[in-house]
Every structure is written in structure tokens, then in C-alpha cells.
């Protein structure tokens, strides 16, 4: 019983921390994009606009929840929940430090891929249930995009699985720490690049934010949503960004560990707690997300699919073959 209670408390702590991070990621995003465009970003609410996310939350919470008359009511209402639940459930398998993980699954990596593939349904069904052409096209675009990039993502992660010999995220980090470079990003540079590009597409972020391209589709599958249901989609998108960032940190950048050759030169780095290393890596990836959004223009949809099928998937296969040969003859 006590164990069960402890589990609930742990889960709540993780969720609360992630939600706080999501709130302040929106703030960081507005600030960084503002700087990139020579503006100040939010400045009015609190010192340097620090209370802006809270003000936004209060505003969106009290708005009217509009449901279109001709929509499929039940699916329209449940779609944001599907997306959010199957995104947040990924947090349970992510090891934040060596001994803090909610569920130490043997197949953690596959679990993340599986729940990501179910979260797509929320988006497709949201587009369909809204009974609007913009929403519907946005939903279909999102589905085909996520389906094609999931293959590239899985291929790049397959290289990691092959090199470490485990599907458990914790074992992957430990196996990684024991290699010469200490991170898989150096020997598997092709897989790393494929992973980054696929992660951008998988979370529907710029430059692959075709499902919500303002110039063509108003807001894509979000068009008919308002108030809190919109906020749920928004939340799911940012949580998915954090999942991808942590996956990148765990599978390619060594998670909570530092490469041995670095600690060999600077021994004092041993004292830094693992959680801090993990956080730094995740924040760097989130910063990359925002940076890319501020600098790159959006791709056309055929370009997007061409990149996925003609560049990333062959590159992922080549990476996998190289890793297989290295593993066999090393």
C-alpha cells in the first residue's frame, strides 16, 4: 500500500515538473523568437514578462468551450484527451537519473514508439470530427507526416538499440557510457541527424508544421477547437517536444552521464549531479527546436514527404548497416 502511495506521489511530482516546464517553454519560445527578430518578447506581466504563462493559463481556462453544431460531439470532445494521455504516458519510462524512473520497462523504447503511434489517432479524429475542411486536411496531413517520419525515427533508434543491445533506456545509457566516445552521437552521426530531423517532423514543429500551416489551413486540426480543449492540444505538443528531447539526450547524448574522456580531463565534473546533465541536454534540444522555428521557412508538403522517404529512410538504413558491421567485426 505504501509502495502504491509512493508511486502516485512520484508520478505527480514528475507531471507537475513537466507541466511547469511546458508553461515556461512557451515563455522561453516567445522570448527567444523575439530576440531572433530584434524584439523584446513579452515584457508587461511581471518583471520581464515572467508571469505571462500564468496569465495565459488563467485566460484560456475561463474562455468559452465552443463545440461546432455539426461536429461529431463525442469524438470531438475526446480527441484532445487521447493525444494528451498517450503523450504524457511516455514520461513514465524515461529515466531522469540513474535511479529515478517511474517504470523501468525492458522495452521502454518500443513503448514510446507505440504510444506515439496511438497519439496520432487523436489528431486524425480531431480533424475528422470537427466537420470542417481545414481541420480535416490538417488531420490527414498530420497522419501521413507522422506515419512516414516514424519509420525514419525508428530506424535511427534501431542503430542505438543494435549498438547497446537493449531496449531498456537505462541500459542504453549505461552501455553508451562504457564506449570510447561515451555518447552515440559521434559514431552514429548519420543516425543522430536523422533522429533530429524526424523528431521535428514527429512533433509537428517548424519547419515541418504543415498540419497547422497558417497560410493554407488556418490552424489545421486545431481550427475548430477553443479554450481548454485547445490548451490540451497545446500542452500535448510541448510535452511531446520534451519527450523527444529526453529521448535524444538518453539515446544519443548519454543521458545523465558525461563522456569518460571529458571527466578524465576535468575530474571535478564528477561532482555535478546527473539530473543536471540530463536537464542541460534536454534544454539544449528544446532551444534547438525554438531556434529552428525562428530561422527556417516551412517546407511544402511534397518536399516534406520526399525528405522523409527519399533521404531520411535510406540514410537510416545505411546507418543501421554500418552499425551492424561495426558490431560484428569490432
Amino acid at each position, binding site marked *: 500500500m505504501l509502495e502504491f502511495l509512493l508511486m502516485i506521489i512520484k508520478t505527480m511530482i514528475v507531471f507537475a515538473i513537466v507541466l511547469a516546464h511546458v508553461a515556461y517553454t512557451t515563455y522561453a519560445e516567445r522570448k527567444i523568437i523575439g530576440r531572433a527578430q530584434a524584439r523584446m518578447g513579452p515584457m508587461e506581466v511581471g518583471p520581464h514578462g515572467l508571469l505571462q504563462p500564468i496569465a495565459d493559463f488563467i485566460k484560456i481556462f475561463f474562455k468559452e468551450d465552443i463545440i461546432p453544431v455539426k461536429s461529431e460531439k463525442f469524438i470531438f470532445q475526446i480527441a484532445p484527451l487521447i493525444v494528451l494521455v498517450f503523450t504524457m504516458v511516455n514520461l513514465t519510462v524515461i529515466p531522469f537519473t540513474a535511479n529515478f524512473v517511474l517504470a523501468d520497462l525492458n522495452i521502454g523504447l518500443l513503448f514510446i*514508439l507505440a504510444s506515439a503511434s496511438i497519439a496520432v489517432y487523436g489528431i*486524425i479524429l480531431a480533424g475528422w470530427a470537427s466537420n470542417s475542411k481545414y481541420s480535416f486536411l490538417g488531420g490527414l496531413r498530420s497522419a501521413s507526416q507522422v506515419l512516414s517520419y516514424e519509420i525514419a525515427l525508428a530506424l535511427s533508434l534501431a542503430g542505438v538499440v543494435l549498438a547497446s543491445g537493449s531496449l531498456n533506456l537505462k541500459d542504453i545509457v549505461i552501455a553508451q557510457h562504457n564506449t570510447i566516445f561515451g555518447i552515440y552521437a559521434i559514431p552514429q552521426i548519420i543516425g543522430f541527424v536523422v533522429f533530429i530531423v524526424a523528431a521535428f517532423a514527429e512533433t509537428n514543429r517548424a519547419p515541418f508544421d504543415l498540419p497547422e500551416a497558417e497560410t493554407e489551413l488556418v490552424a489545421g486540426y486545431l481550427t475548430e477547437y477553443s479554450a481548454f480543449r485547445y490548451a490540451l492540444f497545446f500542452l500535448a505538443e510541448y510535452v511531446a517536444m520534451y519527450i523527444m528531447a529526453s529521448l535524444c539526450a538518453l539515446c544519443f547524448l548519454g543521458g545523465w552521464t558525461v563522456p569518460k574522456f571529458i571527466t578524465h580531463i576535468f575530474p571535478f565534473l564528477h561532482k555535478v549531479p546527473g539530473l543536471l546533465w540530463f536537464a542541460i541536454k534536454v534544454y539544449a534540444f528544446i532551444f534547438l527546436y525554438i531556434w529552428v522555428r525562428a530561422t527556417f521557412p516551412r517546407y511544402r508538403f511534397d518536399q516534406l514527404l520526399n525528405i522523409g522517404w527519399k533521404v531520411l529512410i535510406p540514410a537510416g538504413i545505411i546507418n543501421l548497416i554500418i552499425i551492424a558491421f561495426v558490431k560484428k567485426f569490432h
Partner: protein
Amino acid sequence: MVKIIFVYFAILIIASALAAITRKNLVYSLFWILLMFIHLGGLYLLLNAEFLAMVQLIVYAGAILVMFLFVIFLLNLKEEIKEAVFLHKWSSRLYGILFLLFFAFLGVWSFKNNFKGIYSIELIEKEGHTKVLGTVLFNEYLFPFLILGFILLVPLLGVGIVALRRKTNGTT
């Protein structure tokens, strides 16, 4: 405890399968099939087949069902089909039932009580399901595995050829 969970999964699988084939709206029936696939994954987990459970979700729920959804959207079935279908004839219903019963009996007959192979539950629990599955698949069933790969390659090439013909208006 395990029995209760099993009963829950079994009942929900059957109920959602029944719900899926009785819905008028195809998108709703697809939703029920999704629920069924998720519960099938749960049943695999109960049998210590963790790898199979996740692959069930990724392949069936994540890829194949989305393809079905695309087909439904492409055909744009606003109203349900009202014509008499194949199953409205009594003789075809009878044949259908006999056919299903045949497979049910085949399944019952092939059931072996207390079957013991090399791969006992203890071994799988110790080694990890993914590892054991990989060892068996790539050692004992390598040839069927390769043939399956070729079979899957054929429709892939077929789709490519169809798309290419459409692009060049049939004049290869």
C-alpha cells in the same frame, strides 16, 4: 488477481469486436477496433510477451489501422450502404457459420495440454522476451522469415509500378 485481469481483457476484446462490426458509422467501428487492439496488446503483456505487445500496438494499431482510416476517408462514406449485401442470403449465412465453426474446431483440436517446449516461461522471464524471440526467429525460423520478407516486398513493388504507370499515363 491475474485471472480477473485476464477476464477483463477477454471480455473487452470480444465486446469491442462485436461493437466494431455492428456500428453503422465506419469511423466509430474503427475506434472500437483500436480499443480491441490495445486490449490485445494487454493480453500479450499478461502472457509475458512484452515485445509482441508493443509490436501489436506499433504495427496493427499504429500503421494498419491508420491505413484503414485513410481508405474510409478517401471513399467518403457519408451514408451507410443500403443495398442487400452478401450476408443477407440465408444460404451464405449458413456457409459462413460452418466455415467459422470449422476454424474454431481446428483451433480446439490443435490445443495441447501441458505442452512443454525448450522455451519455458522461466527461461523467457530470465532471458527477456525480446531476446528469446530474436534467437528463435533468426535461428529456427530463418527461412520462413526471409520468405515473408519477400512476400512483403512484392506488394511494395506492385504499388510502385502502379504509381509509376499512373504518372506516365500507362505508356511505361
